[in-house]
C-alpha cells in the first residue's frame, strides 16, 4: 500500500539540545565498533597526546540524540513509520576534537525532502542537518543524514 509523506516538514527547525560528552560513552562506542585504538580507550595515552585526553572516533556524533528530534518522532510527523525506513547517506565534517567533559549545543533542521524512483520503487529522501557548537560558539562538527522512506 503506497503512502504519502508530509513535505511541509521541510525547513523545520528543532529545539536545540545539549550534549555532555561522557568518557565512558566514547569508550563504549569505540568498543561497539571494535576499534580498540588507545587514543579512544586509554586515558594515560590520551593525556600524553596532542589533545590532552582521549578523543572520540569520527562517527561518534551519531550518539548525539534528543527525544524532540529522534527518528521515531520525525517519522510520525512525516506520516510514516520505522518499518519503511532505510539509512541512505551520512556525512560528518569535523572542526575540533571531541573530548570527555565537552558540552555542546546541537541544532537540527530538515534541510530538504525530495522524491525519486529507485530500483525498488518510489522513495522519499529526507535530509537532516545538525550543527554542533561548543561554549565559544565554534562549530565542532556538522552532520548530514539522509533517511530513505519506501513509499
Amino acid at each position, binding site marked *: 500500500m503506497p503512502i504519502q509523506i508530509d513535505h511541509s516538514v521541510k525547513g523545520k527547525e528543532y529545539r536545540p539540545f545539549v550534549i555532555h560528552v561522557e568518557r565512558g*560513552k566514547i569508550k*563504549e*562506542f569505540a*568498543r*561497539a*565498533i*571494535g*576499534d580498540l*585504538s588507545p*587514543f*579512544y580507550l586509554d586515558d594515560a595515552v590520551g593525556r600524553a597526546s*596532542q*589533545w590532552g585526553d582521549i*578523543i572520540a*572516533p*569520527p*562517527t561518534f556524533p*551519531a*550518539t548525539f*540524540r534528543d527525544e524532540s528530534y529522534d*527518528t521515531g518522532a520525525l517519522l510520525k510527523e512525516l506520516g510514516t513509520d*520505522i*518499518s*519503511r*525506513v*532505510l*539509512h*541512505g*547517506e*551520512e*556525512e*560528518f*565534517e*569535523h*572542526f575540533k*576534537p571531541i573530548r570527555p567533559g565537552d558540552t555542546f549545543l546541537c541544532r537540527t533542521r530538515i534541510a530538504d525532502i525530495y522524491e525519486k524512483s529507485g530500483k525498488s520503487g518510489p522513495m522519499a529522501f529526507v535530509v537532516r542537518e545538525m550543527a554542533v557548537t561548543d561554549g565559544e560558539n565554534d562549530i565542532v562538527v556538522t552532520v*548530514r543524514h539522509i533517511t530513505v522512506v519506501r513509499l
Partner: protein
Amino acid sequence: MKYATVYYEDVTVGAEMPPLAKGPIKQIQLTRYAGASGDFNPIHQDPAFAKAAGMGDVFAHGMLSMGFVAQSVTDWLGVGTVQKIGVRFAGLVRLGDVVTCHGKIVAKHHGKEDGRGQGVVDLELWAENQKGEKVITGKATAALLSREHS
C-alpha cells in the same frame, strides 16, 4: 602504520590503504552498537519485525559499517586526521557477513596555511561483503602533518 605518524609527503595519489576486514557480523555486535549509539530500531534486533517490514531478516546498522570505514582511515593515516567523511549505504550488511574496507588517495593539496604544517589528502572509500558486493561507497578528507613546515 597503525600508530606511526603518516606525513603528507609519505602518501602519493593512487596509494591504496591496507584493507580492513571486520566481522563476521554477529547479533551481539548489533545489540552492542544499538546500546552504544542509541539507535534501537528493532529492524536490527528482531527477526520477526524485520520480516514483517519486508527485509527478510535483521541487518546491521549502516552507522556500524560507517564506523568500520572510518576505522580503516584512522588505522592507516592516524587517529584525529579525519576532517570529513561521507558515505552512501549501497547494500545491506547481514548476520555472518564480513565487511572489508578499502580506500585510496585520489588527491593531495595543501590545506589552509595555519602555521601547523598541514597537508590535506582526499580519499575514495568503499566497503564490500565477502561476495565482493559493495555495501558502502564514500569519500573522506584527512589532514596530515607535513615535514616541510614541521
